[in-house]
């Protein structure tokens, strides 16, 4: 041993043989079976180290901020960075990380601003029971009037910058050089899921001075090959833990938080030291101790309590709210938070009572959990585990096996208790190996409270090896700030029904914004992401795709642009042709690198039920008719014309019949040249008027013009149907206000502007 390693408390050793770890991160004892270590990326010989030496393996252990930069700067500049976790065990070395990307949009060096904040407990009730001796020191306290930088923090970045996750598939550690291959899982920000994988390699060199300045974090430099490109790497150590999450505890009046408990073997356990054993830093603050009493809590009441009692935090901070509550039947606890921002709250029920069974410790029988700290602490740690997306082992798809560790249900732990080894003494106050690995290495979307729903991530992430992409992953845009996109679709349609969508882009900021005005499915800026009932995801665009110059408009604060698009027949064919629940999300490239996404909208699709509906579907499901709806023209296909006329004449009051009439009115108002045959379709003003009259029946001016704007291809802004519909409405002497709105709608079809 040559040197004491301040960061790890271990001794550094030099001249150690290379250590090789396999795909699972386990040490390979007999390296010869593997052949020679993989050739790492060539790099220049290390400069003379002077008073420097290779780091110890133990120094690697913990959380790092990984920054990735192209070796050759390229526009647009991006910040590619995120947490990297290196888990060094007695005979294992595993690495994983989550990378977040933000386009900086500037030429020049990317400035990495401080990310995250040190995890520390605040308030007046910080528990001291398990505080590290050097906790205050590590947090960067004001010592002697000098504010030192924080030495324990966790890169916690915006969810909308998430780009990829990686995990090592083989590691070599030798002479201060860490080299590993990894598999990368690429994240799609629209579907909020991993969609593909590829592979890469990173090499990092870690050396430390013989005399190390106090409070200076360890760093590593190196290179990476990602998607066949090379990058420079910098890693900065942020903690000896792997992840951190603040925990705020509120207690109902008269109930006590089990700050510590004496568990099997006389060991003192706390919430924090149990999580610390799994590599998580969970500073816990008892914030309120007088939440108003309520003898029985429903889940709706729990949702109200979290919304009214949880303290504030920054949007990117990982945090969890725990309630020491009263009761809900005989339940011990529940992770109740399953709303749109899930897994941020859990409760333990202090009044729930242990039975008088002989498998319960004598002193705990018939006692409420509140009076049995070990049992209550176990339940609270267990419920927090659910908030970090851990499952009951008996239903975990990885089948880790039922036992006595934390994530087993209390009932199952009791199943292993006996009179000689009663509960809670028989409980293991630690996470199983499977759960510990999940806590340390699972992707951020899985474990971070407030991200993916409970139960996500317990299957295979994805399969296959697609074409490599670069270090930015699948990121094409950043999320646009101060813009919202709203998508409106009918709740329910039958297969064969004409369907339109309303898309509204709104400037919610305080300043005017220039945005693309190509709010349609033809010109590439707008896309619909369509999840079918079976789970397949398709991208919906118009059947006609156009390339043209960017078109923009300026939205003042509060202004919107609105468009109506037909989605009956698209690049998918008949879009809603499968019965069941469809989910659709709109995505719009607002301008430059900024994209904006709508909420998901559900559309229930059913088969045509009534005789009328079946009659309509029999016509509209013909591909030629579908194409006519998409193009706003039936061409020279007389059969399609006849079908459209049948639907228009029979059901002019429905959108399907009205749209059919408008397709005919649009087609017949102009000639049509078939360049393949040289034949021409003549215009027929009489027929066009007839079908326009049909479409106008029972519709306001706005309804008629709105439907008319969905009929022609969006790039065919001179199509007669919109102007003709407006003229028809004027002739009908519709109310002035109605006409004024219709005129705006017609004008927006040609050139959308903010309103």
């Amino acid at each position, binding site marked *: 041993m040559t040197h004491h390693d301040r960061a790890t408390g271990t001794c550094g050793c030099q001249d150690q043989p290379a250590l090789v770890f396999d795909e699972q991160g386990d040490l390979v004892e007999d390296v010869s079976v593997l052949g020679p270590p993989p050739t790492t990326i060539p790099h220049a010989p290390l400069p003379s180290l002077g008073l420097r030496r290779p780091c110890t393996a133990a120094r690697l252990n913990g959380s790092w901020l990984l920054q990735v930069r192209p070796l050759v700067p390229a526009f647009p500049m991006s910040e590619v960075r995120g947490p990297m976790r290196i888990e060094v065990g007695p005979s294992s070395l595993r690495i994983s990380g989550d990378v977040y990307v933000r386009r900086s949009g500037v030429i020049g060096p990317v400035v990495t601003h401080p990310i995250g904040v040190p995890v520390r407990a605040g308030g007046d009730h910080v528990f001291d029971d398990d505080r590290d001796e050097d906790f205050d020191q590590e947090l960067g306290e004001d010592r002697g009037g000098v504010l030192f930088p924080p030495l324990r923090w966790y890169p916690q970045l915006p969810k909308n910058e998430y780009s990829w996750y990686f995990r090592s598939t083989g590691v070599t550690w030798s002479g201060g050089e860490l080299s590993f291959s990894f598999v990368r899982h690429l994240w799609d920000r629209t579907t909020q899921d991993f969609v593909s994988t590829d592979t890469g390699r990173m090499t990092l060199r870690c050396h430390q001075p013989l005399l190390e300045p106090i409070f200076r974090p360890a760093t590593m430099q190196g290179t990476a090959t990602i998607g066949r490109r090379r990058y420079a790497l910098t890693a900065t150590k942020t903690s000896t833990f792997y992840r951190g999450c603040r925990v705020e505890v509120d207690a109902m009046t008269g109930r006590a938080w089990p700050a510590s408990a004496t568990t099997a073997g006389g060991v003192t356990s706390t919430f924090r030291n149990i999580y610390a054993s799994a590599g998580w830093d969970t500073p816990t603050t008892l914030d309120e101790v007088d939440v108003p009493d309520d003898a029985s809590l*429903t*889940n*709706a*009441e729990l*949702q109200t309590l979290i919304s009214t009692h949880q303290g504030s935090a920054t949007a990117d901070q990982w945090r969890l709210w725990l309630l020491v509550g009263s009761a809900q*039947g*005989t*339940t*011990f*606890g*529940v*992770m*109740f938070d*399953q*709303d749109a921002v899930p897994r941020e709250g859990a409760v333990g029920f202090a009044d*729930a009572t*242990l*039975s008088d069974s002989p498998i319960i410790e004598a002193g705990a029988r018939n006692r409420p959990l509140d009076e049995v700290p070990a049992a209550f602490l176990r*339940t609270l740690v*267990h*419920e927090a585990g*659910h908030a970090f997306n851990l*499952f*009951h082992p*008996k*239903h975990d798809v990885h089948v880790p096996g*039922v036992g006595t560790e934390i994530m*087993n*249900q*209390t*009932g*199952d732990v*009791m*199943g*292993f208790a006996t009179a000689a080894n009663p509960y809670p003494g028989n409980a293991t106050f630690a996470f199983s190996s499977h759960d510990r690995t999940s806590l340390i290495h699972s992707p951020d979307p899985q474990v971070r409270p407030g991200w993916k729903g*409970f*139960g996500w991530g317990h299957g295979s992430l994805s399969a296959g090896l697609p074409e490599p992409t670069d270090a930015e992953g699948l990121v094409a845009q950043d999320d646009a700030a101060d813009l919202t996109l709203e998508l409106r679709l009918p*709740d*329910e349609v039958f297969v064969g029904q004409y369907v339109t969508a309303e898309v509204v882009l709104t400037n919610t900021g305080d300043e005017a914004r220039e945005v693309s005005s190509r709010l349609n499915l033809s010109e590439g800026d707008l896309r619909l992401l369509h999840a079918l*009932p*079976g789970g397949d995801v398709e991208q919906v665009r118009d059947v006609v795709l156009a390339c043209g110059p960017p078109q923009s408009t300026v939205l003042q604060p509060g202004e919107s642009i609105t468009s109506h698009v037909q989605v009956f027949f698209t690049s998918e064919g008949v879009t809603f042709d*499968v*019965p*069941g*629940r469809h989910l659709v999300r709109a995505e719009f490239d607002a301008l430059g690198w900024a994209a904006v996404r709508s909420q998901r909208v*559900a559309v*229930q699709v*059913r*088969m045509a*039920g*009534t005789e009328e509906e079946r009659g309509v579907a029999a016509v509209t499901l013909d591909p030629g008719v579908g194409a006519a709806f998409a193009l706003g023209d039936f061409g020279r296909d007389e059969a399609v014309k006849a079908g459209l006329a049948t639907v228009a004449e029979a059901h002019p009051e429905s959108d399907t019949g009205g749209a059919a009439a408008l397709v005919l009115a649009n087609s017949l108002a102009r000639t049509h040249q078939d360049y393949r045959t040289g034949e021409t379709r003549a215009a027929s003003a009489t027929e066009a008027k007839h079908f326009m009259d049909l479409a106008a029946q029972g519709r306001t001016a706005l309804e008629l013009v709105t439907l008319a704007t969905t009929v022609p291809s969006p790039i065919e802004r001179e199509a007669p149907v919109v102007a003709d519909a407006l003229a028809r409405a004027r002739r009908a002497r519709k109310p002035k206000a109605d006409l004024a709105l219709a005129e705006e709608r017609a004008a927006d079809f040609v050139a959308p502007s903010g309103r």
Partner: protein
Amino acid sequence: MTGLTLTLEAPAEVPLDEALVVVVRLRNDGAEPVATSSRLDLAEDDLSVWVGREGADRVRAEWPWPVDSARREVTLAPGEELVGSALLLAPAARLFPQPGDYSVVATFAPRPDTEVASVPVAVRRVEAFDEAARARRRALEDPEVVQSICSLSVMGTAAEGLDLLAGPGGAPVARLLSTTVTTTTADLRAAIDDAVAATGAVTVAAALASVLPPGLFPGDERLAVAADVVADADSGDATAAALLSGAATIHG
């Protein structure tokens, strides 16, 4: 393993605007008494119900939240059975995404290390073509409505959907469960009376026990009210009473 047999009973055909509740029976067909978990409900995770259809992966019916609770055991004498129920509503829209034929099977863990399974049962889910019925079906697919029914408390913006399900013309089980969420215990008896008249005592007991497992909510007033109604109905079937009490009975 021990002579325990699990059976599942489900209606052959249920419209999609109705809440589907299945009844499960754990019976000791052996010659010796058997100690078993008595947590025969979805909430506590010893019971699982799986729904499958041709050409798709089977989906596990879930309780919307992970729950921690103590072990409860019962010793079943030979011929005795325990009866429980499960509400198949979550994950909303994934269990029964479309009309058609489904296969439903139950599994149960009498002890942490053992499992028994039922024989699959076929259930046909049929579409409702009436507009009101379709609106009710959509309400049943709203996760907040599902959470409200399972927790018997109004979650988020579920009130409108619950009112729709509880309104006139609603399917009886969904109507009863929605009414149970939104009404006081004092007013519940009339709703239970109506539901018993419409669908029978066993279905009503199964529906209420599926969201208020008697072992998890012992002494709950709503279970007591239902038990009174069932006793008054004098159907002669011990199943309804057993569902509401959670007690083991002799298999008829």
